[in-house]
């Protein structure tokens, strides 16, 4: 036990060094449940490191989604200058996945005064199977003008990746969306790492939308898994209009993140204000006495996390209700090294 504790100390120390060099947040370390008291003396030091990591990162390095729970779970939001993956389980979720990515783009465009264009790259297969982006709808829902949109339809995946790499290093684009269907071999760690590096140096986000793909190891620091959520009914002066379809809603679960714990959130996009609103299980009931909205897919009340799973008190941990049970935690959420 003593040797393993010493070894862990060493590992922690090394990680802190790496975090300092990289200027990024260290991973939140998971300690075995039994060893929690041992970490008591480690915690304060770790906390300072976390704070230092935050201080090193510029304050606008993160894109705040505006949904409190998701933002705190991701420690400040989605990284802005990075590759982020957004997954949909099936091709029929293409609308939800694209909608979520575009609402993020809309948030970026809202912050930045110059009206930079957005490039959406897709293979011909994706556009055929999942539908071509429709500029009228995008304008109505996300406020993205048609002249701010650029599409690139690549005949092959290889061409699409090339276009994405070229686009990722441009500062004249507000964001790059690369949409890919399935789990092609070409999209491996090397390809995503190249995209990530270029996004980092250009300081622009690259969103990798994946329809019906497996969760594979990629260089993306964040992977969000999207599924549809039933929308709330339209609000009228006389109260909610039964049977109507209101604002788009998304169920976002964090599939992978270097700083966050897995969690599931239901967000609603407000097309008029162009921001997200988080929907919580309790509020929903209060606002809508009629249970038109079904409970989250994984059950009414996800089991609270058992015991203390953090090695230290988190700077901003998600509400316990949002945490899934340990069985839901993906295998790769174990402590891991960069990359």
């Amino acid at each position: 036990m003593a040797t393993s504790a010493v070894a862990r100390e060493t590992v922690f120390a090394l990680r802190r060094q790496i975090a300092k060099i990289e200027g990024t947040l260290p991973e939140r370390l998971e300690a075995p449940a039994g060893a929690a008291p041992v970490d008591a003396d480690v915690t304060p030091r770790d906390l300072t490191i976390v704070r230092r990591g935050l201080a090193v990162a510029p304050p606008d390095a993160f894109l705040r989604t505006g949904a409190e729970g998701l933002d705190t779970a991701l420690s400040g939001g989605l990284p802005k200058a990075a590759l982020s993956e957004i997954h949909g389980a099936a091709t029929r979720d293409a609308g939800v996945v694209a909608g979520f990515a575009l609402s993020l783009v809309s948030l970026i465009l809202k912050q930045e005064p110059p009206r930079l264009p957005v490039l959406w790259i897709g293979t011909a297969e994706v556009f055929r199977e999942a539908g071509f982006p429709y500029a009228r709808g995008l304008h109505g829902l996300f406020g993205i003008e048609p002249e701010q949109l650029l599409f690139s339809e690549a005949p092959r995946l290889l061409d699409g990746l090339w276009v994405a790499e070229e686009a990722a290093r441009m500062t004249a684009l507000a964001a790059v969306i690369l949409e890919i269907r399935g789990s092609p071999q070409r999209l491996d760690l090397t390809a995503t790492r190249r995209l990530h590096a270029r996004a980092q140096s250009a300081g622009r986000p690259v969103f990798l939308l994946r329809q019906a793909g497996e969760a594979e190891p990629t260089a993306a620091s964040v992977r969000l898994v999207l599924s549809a959520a039933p929308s709330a009914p339209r609000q009228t002066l006389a109260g909610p209009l039964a049977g109507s379809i209101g604002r788009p809603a998304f169920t976002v679960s964090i599939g992978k993140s270097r700083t966050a714990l897995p969690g599931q959130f239901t967000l609603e996009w407000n097309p008029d204000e162009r921001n997200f609103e988080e929907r919580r299980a309790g509020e929903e009931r209060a606002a809508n006495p009629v249970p038109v909205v079904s409970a989250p897919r994984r059950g009414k009340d996800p089991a609270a996390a058992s015991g203390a799973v953090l090695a230290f008190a988190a700077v901003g941990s998600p509400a316990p209700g949002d945490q899934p049970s340990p069985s839901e935690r993906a295998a790769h959420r174990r402590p891991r090294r960069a990359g």
Partner: protein
Amino acid sequence: MISHRQANAQRIAALDERAEALHLKRGMGIADARAMHPSIDVVEADPEADRRLLESLADWCDRYTPLVAIDAADGLFLDVTGCTHLFGGERAMLDDILSRFFHQGFDVRAGLAATPGAAWAATRFASDRIVPGGEEEALLAPLPLAALRIEPDIRASLESVGLRTAGAVMAAPRAPLARRFGTSLLLRLDQALGRLDEAVSPRLPVAPLSVERHLAEPIMLTDELERLVKMLATTLKVDLERRGEGARRLALLLFRVDGAVSRIAVGTSRPLREPLLIQKLFHERLAALEQDIDAGYGFDLVRLSVLSAAAFDMQQADLAGETHDDGADIALFADRIRARLGESAVLKPVAVESHLPERAVATLPYAEAPQRVSPPKKPDKIQDTSSTPVFRPERPIRLFRSPEPIEVPATEMPEGPPMNFRWRRALYRVARAEGPERIAPEWWRETSGPEDAPTRDYFRIEDSDGRRYWLYRQGLYGASQVPPRWFMHGVFA
């Protein structure tokens, strides 16, 4: 020996020297020729292939002058006005042409004169002759009538009256000639003598600007080509600056040592003159064409031409000497992608006034789309109402290129939304529906009459999992014998 079928008989179309030595002639029947010499080798004529060969030779002749025209089935006109000094004079140029063709394995005759007609006659009837200006008459006088490029029947009737040489025709009075043989004879005569201008229409449009480099040592590597492109573009920049223009279309001509010519064109969405950027565009194009371009033994002449140019707006630099224009970055980016992946690789949506959803947005290639057009200023009164539309119909964020048919087993009401539907072999249960929004066909368009495109009733549908779709029913129940059909047209966020 090459045969062709003429008037229902196989006849000799062309023959080589050895066959000529056997006293065979053009137009002779193959059967007769075989009877005389059973061992002759006969090949069927292929006019298409001959034409292709002639065109590739014309491409190759581009190295001497941009004005190359094809003459009938077996000749080329080169307008070398102003080009001869580049090759060391008329005689040197003619020798160069003949020797290069000889080394490629062609038996070529060439002539050079001040008029196309005289040059034609000099080539065919007095080989390798250079006719100085003003001596056309002396050249033509002893030649037979065929040297005048006239119709065979005119020639026959001229011969029947005893005019057997061009000189005899020239000596004859013009008026009776015109009366008896038509004006075409005198036209050809005047053209040959330079009394009338004759235009040679070139095969390819002449580039307003081009720069080229003859290479003593042929180059093969793509890297070297790119470096050369940059050098040529640097030279080109000076000319473009003098004209106040930038290139919109550029072509790179690669002349291979063995005569093949490759033509690589790139387009730009903005006028361009920066050598580095031109090199980048060609870098992408060459990378895309890597398989198609065969360097063979190398290229010995590389030419960069501006096919079309447009006015170039100079940009004011700020005090730090930097001009920053995001639009230019994107234009260059789009051009590079276009150079590699084709014209429609970068698309830009343009809103169109139309009720039909699929027609309301047109996606145009980036270069053709209007660049950042600000909407026309309207009077204030109207602008107020137009900026806040009373009704903004909800539109999906993705639209299928062609609506996909779905199966709808039952609807609650005849005109109502479906209760469930089958799309792509999966069954969906409808949880909630909004609609219908009726979109009638645009009857004012000629192509879509009411019969072709029935009315569509669109529904917003949310399925039991919370996904939102846009469906429509085409046609009405009970309106016609054909039952209405259902389609999936788009998905919402």
